[in-house]
């Protein structure tokens, strides 16, 4: 039935296009039937060009007004502050350039629309102008490149740090596990060859002959202490995955056969984050949407949706198969004391394999 309707609609659209063309052609019957733009076409299309400029500005402003609140909240990590700064500087430059160049382009298209008998200016070259718009981007980009590279080096240089917490993020189709290095601060050797040892209890393939591994702790929920550097070591057992933690401005691919690294200092605990205005407003909005959706579900006799509570997220951001869209892990940032308490409750590898 739907197919039939769709087909009917398509046919009707085709007929209406045909008829509109006919009308156009008949209305222009007096004029010569040419398919080349005349003064009339130049005028109305030029005017539309100007209107289009307003449309571009309008859709920009509208999007910020309407959807500005979906953007990520301020970063919850130390380097994230630098990241956000650089982002806003880049955006300022982008919006400035966008506003000016689109205005020139569309205004000229409107202003210099053709008229019969008018002659264009023969103007083919101007080295000075060329130099100006080569040098201005050079200066702007030099600034951005330097600032960017400085920040990049800062973020990506993972220094040996006695106090740092070492955590392995372990990816597989389609879930995450985390492994903490334990008391000794050293992750035991691991390889996918050991995954089948201990009747499948060796969830991330720790090498049982490496003593460093016995105090390792493998969990399904990532807990991080606020204010302490966390050095992540990423592994994958099957295909490429990407560990994406948007609130911390952190991301690194997980590559089978190699260990990748990323480090950051989380600064805001989950509790604190839930109390910020941004998140409170967002949660309120999301819950309103969920209530609405629940009503539809209840009407169909299904269960209502649970109310939403904010949590930090770890998402997979590299296509990895059918359930890629649902490969996630909750991240809990807490005070060092809470973290220690949680950690004490976890089983070490030695305990698990006994």
């Amino acid at each position, binding site marked *: 039935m*739907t*197919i039939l309707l769709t087909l009917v609609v398509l046919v009707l659209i085709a007929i209406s*296009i045909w008829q509109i*063309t006919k009308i*156009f052609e008949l209305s222009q019957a007096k004029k010569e039937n040419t*398919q*080349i*733009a005349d003064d009339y*076409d*130049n005028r109305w*299309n030029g005017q539309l060009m100007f209107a289009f400029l307003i449309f*571009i500005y309008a*859709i920009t402003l509208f*999007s910020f007004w309407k*959807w500005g609140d*979906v953007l990520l909240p301020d970063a919850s990590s130390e380097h994230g502050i*630098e*990241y956000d700064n650089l*982002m806003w500087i880049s955006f300022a430059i*982008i919006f400035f350039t966008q506003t000016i*160049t*689109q205005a020139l*382009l569309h205004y*000229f298209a409107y202003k*210099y*629309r053709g008229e019969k008998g008018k*002659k*264009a*200016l*023969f103007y*083919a*070259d101007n080295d000075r102008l060329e130099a100006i*718009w*080569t040098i201005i*981007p050079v200066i702007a980009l030099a600034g951005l490149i330097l600032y960017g590279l400085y920040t*990049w*080096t800062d973020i*990506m*240089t993972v220094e040996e740090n006695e106090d740092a917490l070492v955590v392995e993020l372990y990816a597989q*189709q389609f879930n995450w596990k985390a492994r903490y290095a334990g008391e000794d601060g050293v992750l035991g050797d691991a390889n996918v*060859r050991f995954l089948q040892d201990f009747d499948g209890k060796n969830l991330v393939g720790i090498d049982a002959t490496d003593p460093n591994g016995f105090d390792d702790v493998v969990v399904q929920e990532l807990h991080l202490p606020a204010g302490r550097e966390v050095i992540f070591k990423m592994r994958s057992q099957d*295909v490429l995955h990407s560990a994406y933690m948007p609130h911390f*401005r*952190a*991301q690194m*691919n997980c*590559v*089978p*056969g*190699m260990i990748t690294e990323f480090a950051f200092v989380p600064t805001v605990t989950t509790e604190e984050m839930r109390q910020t205005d941004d998140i409170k407003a967002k949660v309120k909005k*999301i819950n309103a*949407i969920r209530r609405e959706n629940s009503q539809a579900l209840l009407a169909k006799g299904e269960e209502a*949706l649970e109310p939403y509570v904010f949590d930090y997220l770890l*998402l997979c*951001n*590299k296509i*990895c198969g*059918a359930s890629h*869209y*649902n490969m996630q892990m909750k991240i809990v940032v807490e005070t060092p004391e809470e973290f220690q308490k949680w950690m004490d409750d976890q089983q070490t590898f030695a305990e698990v394999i006994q």
Partner: protein
Amino acid sequence: MSTAAAQVHEEDHGHHHKETFITKYIFSQDHKMISKQYLITGLFMGIIGIAMSLLFRLQLAWPEQPMGIMSALLGKWAPDGVMDPNVYLALVTIHGTIMVFFVLTAGLSGTFSNLLIPLQIGARDMASGLLNMISYWLFFLSSVIMVLSLFVEAGPAAAGWTIYPPLSALPQAQPGSGLGMTLWLVSMAIFIASSLLGSLNYIVTVLNLRTKGMTMSRLPLTIWAFFITAVIGVVSFPVLLSAALLLIMDRSFGTSFFLSDIFIQGEVLHYQGGSPVLYEHLFWFLGHPEVYIVLLPALGITSEIIATHSRKPIFGYRAMVASILAIAFLSTIVWGHHMFISGMNPFLGSVFTFTTLLIAIPSAVKAFNYITTLWKGNLQLNPAMLFSIGLVSTFISGGLTGIILGDSTLDINVHDTYFVVAHFHLVMGISALYGLFAGVYHWFPKMFKRMMNKNLGYLHFWVTAICAYGVFFPMHFIGMAGLPRRYYTNTAFPYFDDLANINVVITIFALIAGAAQLVFLYNFIHSIFYGKPTEQNPWRSNTLEWTAPIKHIHGNWEGKIPEVHRWAYDYSKPGHDEDFVPQHIPLKEGEEELQH
């Protein structure tokens, strides 16, 4: 050399007139016919590619809601009218592959390089008509295989158009990595062969078969763009071929180029010592230049159309050529910006950030030169011109966000999100598509001897232009909100629930944009048969193709090939009555040729 070849051709071109249906319409060696074949095949693939995008847009706007259209088109892949997640991934994969390679590489570059190179440089045909014909038929074959792969039992390739291993290498990882992926690889290997034959032909033709007086510095910018595009293709496509071959080896012969330490479906695989990062390097060594293989021809077409319809010389011809060369050179040393967070050494990230952001400079020069060309022009706002102005607009809007993505630091958090999707669709997808449309509207009279309907063209442009921004502008916000691309739905994360209505807006714009393309299709097909017959030079253009007879003849010109006496952009030149002076008109006494 060129004259000798032309002479030989001239002498025997009389014998070619007796053509059978097969040699004229199917296995034709005539560049004009091959160009039409490329265009029609490209448009056909485009319909498939765009239709796929509409299907997955429906899923994204109304996730997991039963829809009749899904069960009608996808059959068992959409049980109860709900698209299967694997099929979603297959659709985005094939959409990307078809649009990038089959539509915007073969359909755009193949069509207009073939049509314009001989006609604009004043050659009887391509250097090798036979290779040209083989190039098209290899493209056709690869298209057929790609389309056939849609009908494989387990579904077509579904690992994303970049087909990163191990996902693409292991049939255990997803259903699409079985026969579907094999067909994808075979199709692409044939496609690359076709592209290489085509490119070599373009290069040789431009270098050797220019008519008398057509020096390199008098070449229209279209030809410069096609020429440099062909060079980039010859340099980078073989690397993709080698990546594809190594991937085939890994898949079928147990080698370990890209694979190591894998445990999947309860089994440790034997692969040892390979690295997926190596594949990423090889892929993007083509993948990034590919962006410019798609874009440069569109920019070349735009340069030509903006100058012609502004009735003004293109501003800064030398700077335009220099920026094409600069972009081409830089395009081969920036591929690493797709891999900032792949696990490669962060120092490499610094280098690639530097080279990547440099590309903004020649791009800015081009944008400003287009804008200055419009200044004080006498703009003839034909559909081709509108699409060219539209291209400059989307090229700027999309290009600017490249400053964010090309910066390794900022890339960390927007990498592989919808921000990227919005960026590249505007800067290379929509821009190149506009270039294709502009080219079709402008050269339709040359190809089919008739004019397209302008009012339908206007309708097509304005609806498309509004919808393109309507689709991709809001998409930036979804990306900035942190939503990864290639997600079947975002309902698994309540955190993203507030993005649902943006997705609905995007999909509605996409559906209207899709409908607008039907207007184009109708106009295109209708005009081939019933369009108004064209005049000799409808746009009053300077380039040589408009001196060739309207009726297509083998060898392009009756009698001698016109000689060239000036550059292609003498529009509104003082001292001439008309506002254009074609390239074959000799300089008047005392007239100076512009030193460009």
